[in-house]
Structures are given as C-alpha cells and as structure tokens.
C-alpha cells in the first residue's frame, strides 16, 4: 500500500482538532442514563421517611387484606364464584400448595411483616420525627401479618427463607407485637384496637381466659368500637371485595340464606370506597359468649348474645342502589332467587323461611357493618348449649360476612406454597405443611355453596347448613377453639 504524506498543517491540526473534539464530546453524554425511580439508599436519606413508610405499611395492610378477604370468602360457604375470574379451585374448596393464590396470599402476608420489620429496624432509627404512636402502629401491622399467618395457614416461615413455624407460634408473635404496641401507644382508640386484636389472637389459640378478659376490657373501654380499614378510591388500593360484590356481573353470589346481607360494601360513587370493619366490638361479645358456652353457662351466654344483638341492631343499615344485582341477570353459572317473595330453607327438611332474599331495587336496605337474621326470640328459645352454639356460629357468620373470617371458623387452613418449598432451602417437599387442612366434615365439590332452586315455586333449599355441621363436629380439633 502507498503511504500518504499528510501536509504539515494537517499534522499539527489533527491533534489539536482531536483535543477539541474530545473536549466537546466530554460534554455530551449519550450513554448517561439516570433511573427516575428512587433507590432505597436515596429514600432512607430523605427527611420524614418514617411517616411515608408507615403509610406504605398501611397501604400494604389493605393490599394484604384484599387478598385475604376475597380468597377466604371464596373458600367458605359464604359466596359462590359465579363468574370465571377469581380462583375456581378455592370455591370447591380444593386448596393445593401449587395454587398461585396460596403463594400470593402468603407473599402478601410476608410483605406486610417485612415492611413492619424494615420500618422498625432500618427506617425509624434514621428518622428523628418518628413518634411512639408511629412505632406502635407499625408493630400493630406487623402483628396483623402474624395474626393472618396464624389464622389462615398450617404454618409459614416467620422470616425470609426461614424454617416453617406452626400457626400457634405466629399467633404468639402477633400477641407480642400487639402488646408491645399497646404499651407504647398514647392513642386511646389505637390502644382499643390492639386490645381487641390481642383477644382475637388468643381466641384462635384457645386461650379462653386471656381472650375473654381482653374482650371484656375492650367492651368496657368502648362498647361500640370499630377500627375500619379505609381504602383510597382514586389511587388505590380499592376494596376489592366491594368490586366483586357490586359489579354488574355479580362475581360473588352469596348463599341464598345470606342474600339479605348483600352487598355489604355498596358502591358509593367514584370518590368513596366502602371500608371494611376490620376490628369491631361484636367480636368481643362473640368471644365472651363462646367462652361462657364452653363453661356450660347457657343463661349468661344467651344474655351475652342478646347484648350482641342489640349492638348489631344499632349498626348502620343503608339504602343501596342494588338494581344491578338482579341475581342471574348477568348470566352467571348458576341462577339465584332474586325476588323478595322467595323462600329459603337452611337445609333439606328444614322449614322454608321468608325475608332472606331481597328485592333488588334502587333503595334496597342492607346492613353495612353488621347484620344478622337471628332474633331475640330465637336466642331466648335456645334450650341447649348446642342450640346456643348454633346461633352463635350463625351470628358469627352473618356478622363477619365479607370480612374474611369464615374460613378459619370452618377449620380450614392453607398450606405452605410450593414456590416457597422450591426457593427456600429450609423447607421440605412432602412435609405435612404442604397440605391444606380441610376437616373431613367439610363437603367438597361446591357442596357448601350448593342449593336447589325452584324458580317457579321460588324456593331455595341449601344442601348443607354448615353451622349445624360445625356444632355436630364441635369436638374436632380444627374448630371451636374453646374446648
């Protein structure tokens, strides 16, 4: 190849140009890329990070609550999944550890717990603005995570990738957090909620004395106590149970004998979402009454149930535009009775009763905190412990409907998810915790949601009266915590 001799000027000019160009280029950075999102270190160094983290934890509580409520309601006899979205297997109930929802609920619970721990260990220590009440609240939310783990699961790891610990240990952790929160807090209303939460955890553990004493303390402090879970209509999370109860396709259809309680969470427009009464004084009465019945104190138990009835009757009943809830109008999988003259029977051979199915109008009256079909006369007529226990569990079911409580009352527990088994070396496939607990007295194959409906005669006869089934099996270890 020929060599080309560069002119002398070029020999001088080229390096000069190179320097100039290099300088110019160094001021342009086409490869600079900045992440517009906040890294964790950036966040921890911002002022008032603790308050933002607490709100994030509250928000996570709502997200987890949505997941817990919707799925456990499906598992129970409360609702039939009349649409094709939401988990179909849970409705049967058929709960396998491979089910994505078993994983997602477990993840949501762990995330709430982890948010509490990270807030206490990493965020709060750097933020001087954090108050004792903030500390109490985040302890409370972490306690709720343990409460759900203890109420819903066979067992779960208590720390990331830890060994599986049984449900009782989770409830004990919940109680410890709630107690610490109550000790720290100066907020009276918050302290009451911690008290009721302690009673609830002790109830499930079967600690009758503690449960009853805490429940009694709550009723002394505030006999009409409610701690609502309040959602965000605009940016979410919204109340997902409200969504499935009020959508035009009637995703969740209540068992016809519970129709009068629906929709518990009415659609209130675009800026307001119905809250969920996460903790309410009714629970204290139910705990105390169940304690009395387990002590064979029928008279006091009936008195307690009557007090409970008074409280329930005092709760809000609202006129709801329920025209979209014409059962079966949206062509679901099963047709439901949808007129006020329909009669329901709680089980084959039981009497046909009026008043359980509502006419769906623009002003349907529905209880939005607590409601029950049980009357003072029924309570007065209860002649045996079993009769009273039946009424108590019917009231528990009706009062707590759409709050995600029934699955635990039925003695059903979810297994540790397969995802956990695969990714967590401290767990073992084939262990008992990989199987759900579904007591043998629970009907499968949609039996709990089953009923026969005669559209001409307008009669709906339930296949099973699950509260009768529970009472008949009350000695089973999975149910009736107070033995």
């Amino acid at each position: 190849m020929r060599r080309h001799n560069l002119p002398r000027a070029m020999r001088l000019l080229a390096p000069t140009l190179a320097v100039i160009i290099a300088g110019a280029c160094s001021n342009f950075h086409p490869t600079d890329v900045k992440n517009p999102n906040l890294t964790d270190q950036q966040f921890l160094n911002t002022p008032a990070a603790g308050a933002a983290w607490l709100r994030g934890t509250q928000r996570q509580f709502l997200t987890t609550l949505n997941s817990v409520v919707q799925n456990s309601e499906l598992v129970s006899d409360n609702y039939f999944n009349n649409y094709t979205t939401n988990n179909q297997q849970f409705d049967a109930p058929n709960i396998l550890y491979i089910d994505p929802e078993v994983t997602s609920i477990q993840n949501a619970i762990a995330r709430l717990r982890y948010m509490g721990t990270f807030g206490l260990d990493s965020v709060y220590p750097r933020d001087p603005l954090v108050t004792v009440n903030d500390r109490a609240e985040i302890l409370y939310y972490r306690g709720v995570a343990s409460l759900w783990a203890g109420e819903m699961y066979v067992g779960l790891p208590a720390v990331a990738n830890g060994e599986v610990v049984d449900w009782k240990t989770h409830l004990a952790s919940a109680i410890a957090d709630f107690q610490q929160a109550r000790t720290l807090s100066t907020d009276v209303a918050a302290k009451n909620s911690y008290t009721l939460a302690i009673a609830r955890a002790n109830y499930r553990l079967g600690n009758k004395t503690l449960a009853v004493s805490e429940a009694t303390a709550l009723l002394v402090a505030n006999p009409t106590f409610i701690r609502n879970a309040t959602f965000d209509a605009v940016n979410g999370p919204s109340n997902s149970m409200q969504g499935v109860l009020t959508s035009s396709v009637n995703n969740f259809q209540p068992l016809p004998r519970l129709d009068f309680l629906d929709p518990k969470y009415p659609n209130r427009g675009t800026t307001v979402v119905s809250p969920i009464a996460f903790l309410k004084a009714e629970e204290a009465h139910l705990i105390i009454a169940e304690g009395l019945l387990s002590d064979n104190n029928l008279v006091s138990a009936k008195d307690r149930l009557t007090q409970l009835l008074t409280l329930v009757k005092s709760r809000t009943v609202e006129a709801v535009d329920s025209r979209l809830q014409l059962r079966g109008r949206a062509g679901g999988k099963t047709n439901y009775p949808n007129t006020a003259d329909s009669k329901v029977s709680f089980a084959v051979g039981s009497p046909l009763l009026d008043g359980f199915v509502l006419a769906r109008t623009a002003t349907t009256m529905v209880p939005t905190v607590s409601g029950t079909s049980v009357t003072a006369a029924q309570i007065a007529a209860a002649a045996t412990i079993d009769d009273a226990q039946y009424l108590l569990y019917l009231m528990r079911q009706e009062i707590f409907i759409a709050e995600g409580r029934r699955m635990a009352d039925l003695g059903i527990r979810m297994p540790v998810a397969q995802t956990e088994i695969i990714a967590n070396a401290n767990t073992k496939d084939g262990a008992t915790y990989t199987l759900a607990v579904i007591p043998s007295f629970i009907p499968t194959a949609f039996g709990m949601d089953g009923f026969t409906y005669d559209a001409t005669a307008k009669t709906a006869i339930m296949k099973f009266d699950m509260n009768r089934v529970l009472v008949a099996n009350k000695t089973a270890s999975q149910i009736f915590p107070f033995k």
Partner: protein
Amino acid sequence: MEQRFRWPLVCIAVLAALGQATPALAQAGGTIVGKVTDDRSGVALPGAQISTMVDTKDRSARSDQDGQYRLIDVPAGSRTVTVRMIGYAVKTATVTVVAGQTATLNVALAVRPLDLDAVVVTGQGGEISKRRIATTVDVVSREVIEASPAKRLDELLQTTLPGAQVRMTSGQVGTTSIMRTRGVTSVSNNSTPVIYVDGVRMDNLNTIATLGMNVSGVRAQGAATSAIADLPMDNIDRVEFIPGGAATTLYGSDAANGVLQIFTKRGAAGAPKMYFEVRDGYDTPQTQFNFFKATKDLIYRNGRTQQYSAGVEGGTNGFTYSLSGNVRASETQRVYGDNTAFGFRSAVGANVGNKGKYQGSFSYNETDTPRFRNGNAGGYTSLWVLEAGRSSAFGFNNNIDSLNATDAAALKTFVNNAERLQNNRVFTRSFQTSQRLDFDPFPSVKAHVTFGVNNRFSKERAIVTNEFLIATKAYPAGTTDRGSISNYERSFTGFTFEAGAQHTASFGNDLSVISSVGTQLFRNDDVQVQYTATNVRDGQETLAGAGVTASTDLAYRVANYGIYGQSNISWREKYTVELGVRLDKNTAFGANTGAQTYPKVGLVWALGNEDWLRKLISEKYLSDVRVRAAYGVAGQFPQPFANDRTVAINSFNGQQAATFGQPGNRNLKPERTGTTEVGVDLSFLQERITMGLGYYSSRTVDALLNAPPSPSTGEVSQITNVGEIANNGLELRATVTPINTPNFRLSLNASYNTLNNKVMKLGGTPPFAISGYGASTVQGMVQEGYPVGFLRGANAIFDATGKITEIKQLAYLGKPMPDKFGSFGAQLGIGSRFTLSMSADYQFGGQTQSFDRAFRYLYGVAGTDGYVPAAALAQAPYNGSRAAIWQQVMNLWVEKSDYVSVRTITADYRVPGKFLPSVAKDMRMSFSVTNPYRWAASSFDPETDLSSALTQGGAAVGGYNYATESSPRSFILTLRFGF
C-alpha cells in the same frame, strides 16, 4: 444510577477513521455506457451495480431510473464488466474500451431466486457478497415488496422470509403479531427481531406498553397496539434479514432474535420519474370459523379500503432524490372500524468531493385506528357475547341463529348500540431520519458514519360514556357519574450512531481479506404517561371538569454501546474464514457486570469452485454447491433499570406511601445465545433448482427469568440470569423453475423448518406463567423440560364410557409453538407482461386452547352437548352442572393448531404503451386477494391466538382462542402509473 463510557475516545477514533481522506489521481481512459433490463419483461432495472476491475480494484456505477449507466475513466483494453442486482443472477460481459471513446454494453438480467452473489451489509460491518458469508441472509427485493398487497411489514414478511414465522394474532388493525425465527431464546424478552431502517434502530415494540389502554381484560391477551404495524411501508428498496446467531454477533447485546434492516429508495440518476398508485378494494370477514351465521351481519361488513400513493425520483450523477407520500382510508371488516393513515418519505444522495457520498432520508407517518373490546374484557365484548354464548347474560336467547324476527332485531339493536358507542382509539405519529456519510479515503478503504433518530408517539384513548354503560347493561338507566376517559401516551425516541470502516486487501490473485472495524451506539428513551378521569359527563373528550382525575408516568432509558471487528479471509473464494468479535456495554447491566464479549467464527467451502468436482459433475447439472458452518454469540439486554434496588412511592389518600420497589440485581447481565449452524447451498440444472439445507442449534445461557421469589421474602419478582433455553431445527428452502420458455415461466418456492424448543434450566426458580389466566383455567408456563409457554391446566382422563377416571391438575395440555412451519408459493409468468403469483404459509404440531368453545359449553349453547361426554357431566360431583365440570376438563378445550393458509393470490399485468395516454410511460395493474383460503385442524382460527406478552417487551408465544377476530379477506385492485 449512572453509567458512563469513554465517549471521547470513540469520537477521536471516528475522526481518525474519516480523516484519512486524500484526493486520488484521475486516470485517463474510455467510457462504457449501456442499459440494464429484466430479460423477460424488458423493464429497465434501476439501482443495478455495474463494475469492472481497474488495478485490482472495482470501478463501479449504478444504473439510473431508466436502467442506464455510465462507467468513466476505464483504462483502454478488453474489460470484463460485472452487473449485480438483488434478486437477479450476476452477469458478466466483455467489452473493448478505446481511450477517449464510448463503448456500449447493454445487459439483460435473469431472475435468480437463491442469489449467492448478492451483496449484503447487515451484520457485516460493510458490503460483502453472500458467497463469502457463512450464515443465512435473506433478502426481500423491491420487486417482491412492490407486488405485495401487504399493509404492514410483518404481513409482508409472512411468506417472504423462509425461515421466519409471522402470525397476525388479531384481525384488528394495528395490533401486535408474533414474529420469531429460530425458536424462542428468552422467556423475558419478546422474539421480535431488532429493526433498522437505513442504519437507524427503530421502535420494535410488539407487545403492550407498561401503561396502555385495556380493551382485553387481561390486557396483553388481546388486541394490543404494536409499533411494527405502523412502520412506513412505502418506498422500500429492499429488506435484509439475518437470524440470531453468528450473523448477528456484530450487533452484540441486542440481537439474539435476529436483525431486520430496511433500505429505502435513494433515487437514481436520470430525469424525474414519477409514479401514482391507487389501491382500491375491500375487506370482508373470514367467517368460516364462526359458530353462528348471524355473527357476520351483526358486527362485520364489507369495508372499502382506498390508498393513494405518489412519488418522484431522479437526479444527476452527483445528486439523487426520492420523494413519496401516501394516504389511506379504510373502513375495515368491522362495522365502525374506519381508520386512516398517511405518511411521506424523502431521501437524497449527494457526492461529497470525489471520494465521499452523503445519503439522508426522512419519513413521517400517522395512523388513527379504532379498537374494539376483545379477549377477556368481559361485560359487552362482541365476540364473547355472540360467538361464546354470553348473550344470555344480556337477556337474549344465546342460540342467535334461531331467534325470531323480534328477538333478532332486538339483538341487532343492542349490538349495534354497543359497537357504535365504543370509543377506543389509537393514534400514532412517528418520524425517522437517517444521515449517512460514506468516504472512500483510499481505493481499499470504505468508511462510513451513520446517525439518526426514530421518534414514535402513540396515544391510546378510551372514552367510556354513561350511555355505553347503560346500553350494555353495566349500569342502570339514569346513571350519569360512571363515564370515564383513559389516556395513555408513549413516546419512544431512539438515537443511533455508527461509524465504521472496511478494508479490502488482496494478496496476489488468490487471497483476499475484507476487514471491518466500527463502533455503534444506540440510546432509547421510552417515556409513558397515563392520565385518566372518572365521573365524566357524556360528550366530554378532555379531562377538564371530570369528577376525579388521576395520572402517573414512567420512563425506560437504555444506552448500548460497543466496538466490533471482523475479518473475512478468502482463498480464491473457495475457502473463506470469517472471524468477528463485538465488545459491548449497556446501562441496563448490573454494576458488577463489565463489558460483554461476543465472538463469532464461520467457514465457507465453495465446493462448486473445485476443479475436481467439475471433473465429476458438469455445471450444467450441479450448477453450484457451497458448504458453510458458523458459530456465534448474540445477546439480549435486560429491561432498563431492573438492576437497581428501589423504593416505590405510591400516592395514598393524598400522601406519599413508601414500599419496597424492585429488589435489584447488581449482577444483571445480558442473555447470551450461542448458535451453531451448518448448511449447504445447492443449485442444479443451471439454477432451475436451488436449495438451501441448514441446521441450527442454539443454547441461551444466563437466560433472564422474572422469577417469583420465595413468598416468605415478601419481595416482588426480580429478573435474574439463571435460566437456560435450547432451540434447534432444520431450515430447508427450495426454488424450482420447471418451465422457463420465452412465453412461460413457472417458479415454485417452498420452505420447511422444524423447531424444538425446551427450557433446560430454571436455576432453582419455581415454574411460572408468562401468559394465560387463572391457574384454575389455563396458563402458558415456563418449566424445566418443557417448551416455553406450554399450556397448563386440568387434564381429565376418560374411560370408554366417557366417565372421568382421573383429573391431573396443572398438567401439560399442549404447546402453542409448532414443530414444523414454513411457507410456499408459485409465480407464473405468461408472456413478458403477465404474472400470476400465490403465497402461503403453514404450521403443524402446535396446540391452542379455545375459551370461545369452553364458554359456549358453559353457557349452554345448543349443539354443544357433545363437547364433554354426557357420562362425565352426569357423574358426581358434577351432577349435570356445566359450571362444575368445565374447568376440570381443560384438555377438551385444547385443539391442534395446524393450518395451511393461502396468504395472497395476485395477478399482475404491465399494460402495453399503446394503450396508455401519452403522458404515462408505463402502467401496472394488479389484482390481489389476501387470505383467500385457510385450512385448519381446529374448530377456530388457529392464527388468531393472541400475542399474550403480559409485560412490555415480554415473551409471547400465543395459544389462546378468545373472543378475537381473524384477519380479513381483502380484495385489492392496484393501478400504478409511471410518468
């Protein structure tokens, strides 16, 4: 996180490469002129390359508009002139040049289907003959593109890329498709190839955007807007495609799925040549797969399509130009489906000094398209309501073919209102510019710099009025506060810069070495905004005055930059060795990940040039044979910002709420796909039969998995490089020309590809879904030992009486990816003016799940009793309940997705000059039918199986038949006048 590159060094390197230009001495000699034409039609061929060797270097020129060329300063003597043109056989001829005089040499070129001598550039760092390349390169010529009635690029490629599979997964205009070659190399990234136009990287998003309109329920699983759909289709000169592997190594971390490069027309020297083209026709629905006859009249129509294009090109020896524009208005097959598009493109070329050339192009286009509810949007979704029996939910008898006149009229009114009141529109606007400077500082060195920008803006807007909600029975009459407006805007800006040089050296007459070096950078900024309003008064189209408004935004930014080098060493063009390497960095890599190295090596043995072979078989029988083998690595970079650990701030009751964002991954790196390929190219009987036989085997390591964490961590999914995916298959293609007489020419082509895809390792992560619905219905899964996206659900086993004996939950039900696929076609030329052509594609060995069929059963449509054995339905615990059984027999809803689809039939005629007015130079008239015939093994259209990528840029393999319409059948008459 910020990452920086030693950018100034690149600047200096470019400067150094370009600064070498020095004037060369002109040589005295003669001139060769002539005209290049098609040997059958006699039509002039612009853009052909005419070259002759002068002092071991090429002297070349390109033919102008009229096929004319001029080679100047050719030394006197007997000269061999070579003429090359994509799609035609190379021709050489000898001419005697006398100093100071002009010699004439006219050349007529013959069409050549498997063109080994074509010069390609994509993936090579510079121009190089296909003969010297060890990997597959497909070229779609201008002739093929102009003759195609395709409205969008992927539609064009359906039958023109023999090794690719392209499926339009929804008939709605402007929606995503599935494009893939050589299987699926990633479960986190989409298989759509990277697309360049004139060297500038384009937006190739062929999935949903993260913020986007939802008219499909599970949003991705339906008609989502695709950036591929609005790539400008006019004025394309040719398309080059290289599949992932050694061919794409020089593209580094961006090219595991292959690279598709579009070259636009630059104009050729000559007097201004204008054209005007009219396309007029109509779309009609493919109704063969409809369950009900009534569906056709309720939502479909024969919709007219008109498109007008015009252009001009020309220039002088030193300056060329090309300008074109088009406008289209289409009613489409859907009632209320009117859509419009327009665009224009310009290009100029100019000599810069006597060693340089500038080429610039610019394009702009807009589309405006409606979108209809589909997939599992629920509520009123026309095809679900009509075809899947859901009309019962709205108070109709769902056997819609047997309605009495009153009910039929009521249904028609209901459907028409619902269709009319849907107001979902997609508006796109994009421009692209490419600026390229070529310098040949020495006869042996060619250098170039290319830079350009692509900007694509899309706006999706869904207006849901109270009137619509009341009409579709979602809210009661009198509702005024449920209207909503949802806007989604995405702005993609891609900047591309490339500088490179190619050096050609010959050592004696035997050894030649072509080496290239270069640097490339691209940067993508993808900014998305969502702003929505609820409680909107009907008629309002802006957010002003709405009861509640909300907004959010996000940004993805990534820069990728690297250097490459390649050497192609050939001994007499018999034995060629290719060696190449690319070093790459990317801002999406984790902090602990350094520059990535992608090597390649290729070997070519041109057996046809061996004397010993020629002694055995004459060229008359075995015209050419070539054996090739290559190994190369290409990558796929992770989603931007997935490397950083973040805290997410959410708006919550008017305040900030902080939570864990993504866990982050400091070790994040690209997926690396190593591909080994071997092949033989054969031609027989003087190219009457040409064949390409190939086999590839690829292994993707460090595959990115968006794997679920163990739930006890409470974390969200984080992508990590822990997977391994294998693909292998045969790639066979053949072209046969059984008849080639002056009056008739018949050419047949076919391709056959096989595909074995398997996930080899998941690195300890549990199986996860990349598509589908709930676990209790069907999901597309990623699991070790199975193909990507296989269908999983309940598999019921029946005994001889039809009773269910066992149900395997979460079982394998099939796989959407076929085992075999390909295309075929025929072209018949009668005389020199008439051509009849047909193209088709097919697939075998895949499966698709049909929700439409399942729902028909669930909703008790007449004639569906046999879908599930009666004995199974009767047995406990189902006891006659379709609701209880339909999800336990998901295997019954899965069908074979085999199909053979004739895509186009086109008759093309060049009208003789004597019939034309004096102003027109030529006229071409063609009539084509698209989708005239489809055979399918399934009860539904197996092509329309949703794109199913759940995330932006995510993997998609399809597999669901769910309330989505097929592509239309179109009849189009095209008249093209040349002036």
